[in-house]
């Protein structure tokens, strides 16, 4: 008897609560939030915590505050490598922004030409490398560019440009550019697809109206299509930024953890790997590694914030 009344009360309560607090949303979100917290948020916070500690010989850790960051930024042995990695990372990013996203945009424009035949074939072919493992990409390109038996030197020789060939992956002046371009080659399909999708979304009426008003193809692109795909370009940029500042695998696959020659291809990812896991005789330091990882997080965070407040807001004002 009492049971019945209790359940009655509960059911009427539930009706009222549902209208105020959407329980079902919390229920649906719970699994994702739990997993995300466990595998992303907790490790992230723990990394930041770890960066405030230092370990001694016996592996016992003690709290040292910001000492690791002071070492990273002020000790010439660390700061030299850190700034070098950051500079290389910026170059790596800029090359992707200019070359990868530039070519991606161009390819998307070409694909959206109504008279193009075999468009889906090109689309698939250009997108294909994106799906391959970075290790395979690194291996293939090392073979292609190999000065002893690669096809690049013989191809250049065949067209009379043999003298232009150099051991590009082995020279300080060219190694970073070469590795960046290999990465561009692999990932150019992603901006292409995103921009292509955005271009397809532009209503034909707008383009027709512009043409009727006397705009040439260039003006249509510049004044109609480009402003309409700007939000997509923004997303592409921020994706490129985050991916590039987290990059590691391709450089590790091609140049190893010392990112030679003379650290000319060293980016934050390889610097982090060497610090955290150690390399050859260098014993890894989890606490210094955590400091490097935290520094990377801060850099990415700054970049994303600049984008959100400097670019995204203006873009929204532009489109709406």
């Amino acid at each position, binding site marked *: 008897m009492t049971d019945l009344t209790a359940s009655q009360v509960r059911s009427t309560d539930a009706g009222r609560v549902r209208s105020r607090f959407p329980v079902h949303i919390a229920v649906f979100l719970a699994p994702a939030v739990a997993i995300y917290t466990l595998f992303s948020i907790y490790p992230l916070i723990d990394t930041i915590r770890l960066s405030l500690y230092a370990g001694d*010989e*016996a*592996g016992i850790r003690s709290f040292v505050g910001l000492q690791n960051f002071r070492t990273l930024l002020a000790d*010439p*042995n*660390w700061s030299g490598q850190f700034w070098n990695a950051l500079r290389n990372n910026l170059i790596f990013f800029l090359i992707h922004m200019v070359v990868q996203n530039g070519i991606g945009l161009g390819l998307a424009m070409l694909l959206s030409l109504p008279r193009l035949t075999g468009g889906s074939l090109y689309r698939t072919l250009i997108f294909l490398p994106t799906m391959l493992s970075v290790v395979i990409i690194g291996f293939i390109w*090392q073979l292609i*560019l*190999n*000065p*002893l*038996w690669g096809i690049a*030197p013989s191809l250049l020789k065949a067209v009379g440009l043999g003298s232009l060939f*150099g*051991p*590009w*992956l*082995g*020279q*300080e002046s060219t190694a970073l550019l070469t590795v960046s371009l290999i990465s561009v080659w692999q990932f150019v399909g992603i901006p292409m697809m995103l921009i292509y999708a955005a271009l397809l979304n532009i209503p034909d009426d707008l383009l027709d109206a512009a043409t009727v008003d006397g705009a040439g193809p260039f003006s249509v692109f510049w004044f109609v299509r480009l402003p309409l795909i700007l939000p997509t370009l923004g997303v592409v940029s921020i994706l490129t930024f985050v991916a590039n500042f987290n990059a590691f695998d391709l450089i590790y696959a091609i*140049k*190893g*953890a*010392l990112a*030679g*020659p*003379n*650290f000319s291809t060293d980016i934050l990812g390889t610097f982090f790997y060497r610090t955290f*896991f*150690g*390399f*050859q*005789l*260098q*014993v*890894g330091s989890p606490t210094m590694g955590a400091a490097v990882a935290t520094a990377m997080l801060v850099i990415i965070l700054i970049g994303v914030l600049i984008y959100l407040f400097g670019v995204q807001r203006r873009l929204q004002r532009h489109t709406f």
Partner: protein
Amino acid sequence: MKKLHSKAFLRRAGRLLAGASVAASALAFAHAASAQTLTIESWRNDDADVWNTKIIPAFNKKHPDIKVQFKADPPTEYNAALNARLAGGTAGDLITCRPFDASLDLFKKGSLVSVNDVKGIENFSDVAKSAWSTDDGKTTFCMPMASVIHGFVFNKEIFDELKLTPPKTVAEFHAVLDKIKADGKYTPIAMGTADQWEAATMGFQNIGVNYWKGEEGRKALIEGKQKFTDPAYVDVFKELASWAPYMGDGYKSQKYPDTQNLFTLGRAAIYPAGSWDVPIFRKQADFQFDAFAPPVVKDGDKCYISDHTDIAIGINAKSKNMDAAKAFLSWVASPEFAEIYANELPGFFPLSKAKVEVKDPVAAKFVGWRGTCESSIRNSYQILSRGTPNLENELWNVSAQVMNGSMKPEEAAKKAEDGLASWYEPHKK
């Protein structure tokens, strides 16, 4: 009524389950007691076959009750993977030990136990144990297995064709190189700098011992009595720089496997080697090859070789099969193991005092230099690679740069010295 019934059922099921689990754990315990299984952690994935088909069966003839499993990670991932497994308590019973600090670090953290009391440790000299002992030499924590020796492997057929004899001095070495270059058919030196480590390991450490007089120089460097800016070290860098014109097109982006291929395809005459290359060449090269020791600086000089303590085996402090693990280590210290290891993996030379006959003629030549030259180990390995910047990594970098021509020998010496002096007390003066 129904409820009661289900409760009783649950209780019964629970009792059954508990009983079963006790039985299962008892069974598992009995199983563990009757046949102990040892797992070996290693970075030598190339050798898995030899372990599984030769070494472990030989051990099992003596100890049929101990099962041994060989598990290997890729060399570059070994340290990281092993550290993670040790921290998580899932590492194997036997740990293959890298020389010096990486293993010393594990011992200090309490992951490895002392092997001072393991039978067979007396078969090793202090030098052999040095790579796996504490700085004061009192505690050894891994049973030494093998060392690798540096030298030069050459293509005998090219040497015969061009009527060359293996050089003994640096001057003769250069005369040979000049002749090969003048002939124009072959690359004189097979070597690349893309991976960087060859420049330091097969270049700097290989020829360097003759310049800094082996152990004498290595110890002087540790004590701070010598510096990298001393003429002996600068001269090694100068010699390395002089190899550049002989190394063939595009050596700056030539990797280690490229170099091995270049030699085994018969396109290069001389290969600055580690003895571990011998079994690979034995498989791949279809021509006669031979070896010569690193050339001495001047005629009549005493010769030195880099006879580097490379691999050992220790016991995980958390191993549940301590006795079996010790039995295995004792067997590793026996002449029987030395014999099998030396001949199944020619190029890895046993460190024990036991006399072992190496059957591969080229490997035998390498190990034969122990009789005529004085042995030393790589100078960056003991103590000097403990700080930041790491000396070994620095030597990779500067040696490769010297060979690439992007750094002068004097600059390379200064960079190595400055890096060392920035953290190592005896070099701060």
